[in-house]
């Protein structure tokens, strides 16, 4: 079987298109590359969706944490503590079994026990908490002069937030937020190891990599392939966020611009 044929059969296997049965023996390099790559669809899906939705919740929570009103500040602080203080792995397990129990009572919750929705919700809340902490830090370090200048121009409330506070917050938070994004994409590999079932063996990249490692008892091929895919993904994220970073800092003289500094990515 040619490699092109394999790509046709397994390229979209992770979302249920193509050959139903996974290869069982005599794995070729091409099969491993194709299936692990097809699993990346899920990693990208989880990462992109959680980032896009989490961004808005994170902004709201960061603002709430900075308020003087304890009725809004305390819940925001608790939310951040809850999701940053406990392992994501346990959060996945807890959410899965929570949805499973709810499903028994209300049939409405049955899609929540599937990874595409249930795990996405956990990732959404988790990244919202981590990003909110980053945004909160940025809100705290907005130069006093900028807010005073906004006051002097008669800007207040929503207008001041939208025109002055929010853009500066985003600019200051962006390097840290880039790391959070990379970090989140890496965290998506936990999904199929934490209770959420891979229905009809439609899993993510790590799911297929460990499938091959289990079957061949040889970790030295699938995991480096997975690593290669993730390094590529990380480079794409860095490039994309770098473009946004240049856009956010376009008003500054070239030598005063903040460079993106990359930090090692840790497990959460």
């Amino acid at each position: 079987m040619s490699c092109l044929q394999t790509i046709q059969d397994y390229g979209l296997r992770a979302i249920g298109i193509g050959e139903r049965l996974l290869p069982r023996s005599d794995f070729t390099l091409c099969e491993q590359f194709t299936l692990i790559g097809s699993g990346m669809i899920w990693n990208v899906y989880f990462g992109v969706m959680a980032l896009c939705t989490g961004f808005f919740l994170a902004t709201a929570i960061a603002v709430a944490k900075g308020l003087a009103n304890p009725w809004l500040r305390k819940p925001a602080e608790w939310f951040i503590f809850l999701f940053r203080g406990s392992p994501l792995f346990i959060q996945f397990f807890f959410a899965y079994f929570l949805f499973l129990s709810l499903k028994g009572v209300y049939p409405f919750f049955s899609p929540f026990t599937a990874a595409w929705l249930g795990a996405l919700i956990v990732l959404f809340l988790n990244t919202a908490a981590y990003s909110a902490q980053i945004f909160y830090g940025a809100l705290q370090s907005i130069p006093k002069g900028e807010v005073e200048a906004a006051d002097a121009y008669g800007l207040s409330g929503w207008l001041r937030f939208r025109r002055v506070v929010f853009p500066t917050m985003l600019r200051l938070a962006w390097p840290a937020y880039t790391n959070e994004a990379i970090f989140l994409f890496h965290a998506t590999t936990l999904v199929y190891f934490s209770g959420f079932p891979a229905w009809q063996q439609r899993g993510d990249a790590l799911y297929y990599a460990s499938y091959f490692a289990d079957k061949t008892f040889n970790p030295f091929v699938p995991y480096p392939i997975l690593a290669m895919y993730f390094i590529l993904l990380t480079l794409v994220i860095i490039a994309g966020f770098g473009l946004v970073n240049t856009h956010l800092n376009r008003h500054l003289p070239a030598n005063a611009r903040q460079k993106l500094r990359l930090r090692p990515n840790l497990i959460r």
Partner: protein
Amino acid sequence: MFSYCTDPDTLATLSWLTCYLTTGVHFSFYYSFLKVLGILAVTAPVALAFGFGGAMAARSSILPLSWFGKGYIAIVRGVPDIAFFLFFVIALDQGFEWMRHQVLCPDWTDPIRQGNDFLVCPQAKLPLGSAPQVVHQTYAFGLAVITFALVFGAFAANVIFGAMRAVPKAQLETAEAYGMSPRQTFWRVLVPQMWVFALPGLSNLWQVLIKATPLLFLLGIEDVVYWARELGGTKTAQFTSYPHGDWRMWYFFALLVFYLFMTWGSEKILTRIMAGLTRGQATSGGEAQRKGVAA
């Protein structure tokens, strides 16, 4: 455990619960919490040592050694760590068996990788097929510790490498001007001063290490996650005198609370250590502390 537990069906809810929570299997569950603490206690110093070694290698003036150190640090970037965990456990196991195979069975002619199998001679198996269960468990735990230490050592190396570069140059130049050798400068000036720069990163790492401990489950250890799944699952009256429905949610809720306490408590302690280390340092924190004392 208690004397009134002989017939659980007749008990009221509260005493039923006290009996239920003190069954033998529950003590295995509580014991697995000790495993978590144990792996933290063992891994943290080992990872710190690996990190220190990695940072020293990366700073080395010998080029290949510096490449090795930098490569070790760089490899943890860009790849999900759970992949490292899954990889290292098999890779280390096979590496050890391969080395023993080379030493113990030099006459073995068959290839080690036969298709989908990894075959070493029986004497080289780790642990030996005849070994008792305890040895197997200890070996698995040891592999897990080495894996954790390798991964977290790389993180720590990155933090320590950065901290070593953050020590003011003038301090090192002064040491040189006093006639200290590079070795003396390193141990007497650089290392004592670097900790204050390393601590924020290291304390972050400690929190991350705490939160990584449930991944032990993926390494095949009977840890808290394993027991929470086992004990929480639906139990029928056929197999146990304490039948209950699906309680896994509550077991994982308990784990969630356990980890929240762990991270909360260590944050309190680390803040104190930081205050101690900041004393007398030429940083803004140290300056603020000095003014606070003087006032």
